[in-house]
């Protein structure tokens, strides 16, 4: 299976001399198309930084990043913006929805930024909201939604421009168990639809749903496990969330 994403010797350092911090330290990563990879580790181990590097939100100090067949670590800011617009979708722990926009306006925003017509952007947003089960909430403001619903809106927004890769940073970090199950099911749907996912988490229940689990410590990968149950099996039972 071909790699959608690969990194070689990826490094991100802060400071210099004695105060040098290696947030990401020589990471080699390959993610195949349609694969779900979970990255686990304690707080501060560099997993969010890794996600930001891969998604073009941050600049690497060294190493290479290849996404969808092209090297992206040396792109200009403008080209990186285009990359985020077309090839990458983000899901954040804090949702990062715009409170002054309705649900559907939040979801259609990436399409509008990508230059799609308002009609096409709205149609795509409507379809995505139906897909995440929130088609009835399109005109609501995010503040009127529960945490789980907000995260589903964020997922819908991440899919707006049909990205080749969705990056999720602690997607259930702010959610209760029921909402976590909602989001897990959504990721399972995405996985089954062939969406490539990289999920950074410290929640073992989320990690257990992935095809592959990578453990990270002090900026480096320390363990890698291929999970056979994953999202193809009985998600709820495996994650221990169904009562």
């Amino acid at each position: 299976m071909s790699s959608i994403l690969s990194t070689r010797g990826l490094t991100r350092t802060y400071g210099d001399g004695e105060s040098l911090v290696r947030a990401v330290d020589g990471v080699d990563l390959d993610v195949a198309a349609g694969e779900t990879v979970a990255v686990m580790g304690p707080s501060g181990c560099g997993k969010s930084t890794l996600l930001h590097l891969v998604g073009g939100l941050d600049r690497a100090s060294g190493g290479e990043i290849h996404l969808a067949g092209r090297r992206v670590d040396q792109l200009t800011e403008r080209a990186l913006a285009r990359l985020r617009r077309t090839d990458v979708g983000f899901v954040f722990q804090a949702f990062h929805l715009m409170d002054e926009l309705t649900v559907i306006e939040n979801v259609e925003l990436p399409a509008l930024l990508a230059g799609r017509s308002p009609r096409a952007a709205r149609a795509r947003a409507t379809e995505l909201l139906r897909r995440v089960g929130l088609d009835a909430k399109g005109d609501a403001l995010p503040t009127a939604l529960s945490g789980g619903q907000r995260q589903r809106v964020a997922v819908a927004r991440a899919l707006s421009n049909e990205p080749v890769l969705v990056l999720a940073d602690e997607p259930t970090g702010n959610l209760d168990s029921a909402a976590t199950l909602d989001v897990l099911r959504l990721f399972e749907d995405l996985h089954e639809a062939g969406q490539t996912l990289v999920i950074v988490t410290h929640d073992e229940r989320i990690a257990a749903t992935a095809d592959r689990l990578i453990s990270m410590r002090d900026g480096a990968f320390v363990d890698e496990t291929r999970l056979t149950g994953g999202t193809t099996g009985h998600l709820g039972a495996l994650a221990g969330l169904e009562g």
Partner: protein
Amino acid sequence: MLLAIAAATTTLTLGLAIHGVASDPFQSSRETTAGPDVTAVIMPDPEGGAVDPAVLDGLTGADGVVDHSGPYPVAGATLTHGDRTMDVQAVGRDTEPAAVDRPAVTDGDWVRGGGVVVEAAFAEATGLQVGDPVTLAGRSFEVAGIAVTTALVPYPWTTCLVHCVLGQLPEGMRSAPGAVREPGTVWLTVTDVEEIASGPLSYVSYLKLADPDDAQAFVDAHNQDQPGAPRLEPWQHTFEQVTHLERNSQRVLTTGGWLLGILAVASVAVLVGGRMADQTQRVGLLKAVGATPGLVAAILLTAHVAVALLASAAGLVAGRLTAPLLSERTPGLIGAAGDPALTLRTIAIVTAVALGVAVTATLVPAIRSARTSTVDALNDAARPPRRVGWLVALSSRLPVALLIALRVAGRRPRRVALSIASMTVTVSGVVAAMAANAQLAAQPILDADTETQRLGELLLIITVTLIALAAVNTIVVTWATVLDVRHASALTRALGATPAQLSAGLSFAQVLPAFVGAVLGVGGGLVLYTAVDPDEVPLPPVWWLAALVPGVMLAVAALTAVPARLAARRPVAPLLQAELA
């Protein structure tokens, strides 16, 4: 906060000080110089033939006349000072003070044999000083003094006591033989005037009436439209001529003062907004260590009242020192369009505004903190943005930069209203100044017309001050906006907006209100000037007005470019992570 309030209070002091400039220099000069109520002149026939000054004596005994001086002889002559040659009208006066019209000597002494006294505006325009040697009609004199009078209009629009020409003659008209051009006025002894005269003399008498308000009626009753009859002019005519530009100066100062004051309040409003946002986390910290909302308010109030008092004192001093630049003394009169004064009212208003800023910036966050949880205050939770639905819908149909701009603007409608108001006030002032300049340019002007030049300078200073304050407002509002939308900006970039699109969007968010303000300001400026000066309808060149709106937009784009560019290039990841911190 000290510097910010001091800047605002300086501007406010300046505005209030020059707004209070409404003293009447003509009236005070008239009282000091025992100015006449009626001036009566009799001139010889241009073709030759002397006049009898006794004709004027008939007026001195007329009903209503309670005092008089004159008749005094007047001769047209050429004055030479160094290489310069100027026309003058030389009035013969007694060495003793007269009952009516006692020119106030501002430098040197009154007339003496061989000593000439020069009218103050003429002296200022020509650079004549006490002690200067001059030649009058070929005879040597020394400048004995400089004096002010209200019996005639000061140089260069001098009341002619001999046949004279002011400015360009209308086409087809010829000046009288021997007429002097744009003369200044000098006083000599009667003997000296009679000696320098090269032809028949004119005579002038000054009359004091029982009731100065009857001057026009007296003139109407005694003016005879026939050769050899005296020409009478009421004091109101001199007043109108003298105070024409003076009143314009006062109008400019008063209107400029109001505009500066409004802009200062707009600056203060922006500062208060920023200050309130800054206070939130500090209030949370105080609450977290056990302070009650009342104690929090007391602590913040004490600190800020001290700062505000210090800032207002600095502002008052700076404003008072700056105000004279906008209100210089007028030559030809005693006093000025107004010496700006630091009145108790000004001090009270400026101090009240500064204290108001401090109290508002203190109490509102304290009250807010009482209503919100300590945790939220500690987290410095951002004020929720407003939603303007139609603006969001409209923005969806626009290019990305404009989409961002409209949505940024829509988040804070009050800030946008403030920007529009600020720009409307500024452009109104600029347009009014342009109209006034157009009016000045259209009227006949003499080379030595220092009053008109001064008015032009006054307009320029006020215009520059208005623009500078508006520029500061624009930069402050832009920074406030940039800080307010930093999370939304980071998210927009994470979702695919390029730095250039975001930078342009943040800049356009300021340019759009500026555009609205500029359009309103163009109309408002013409309305403002028409309201201030309803008698004279000005119209600046249309292309000036047409260029003003794009000019304002370009200027705002330039002013906002740096903060917008800096904001658009901030690293995205730390900002998105910050909310989790």
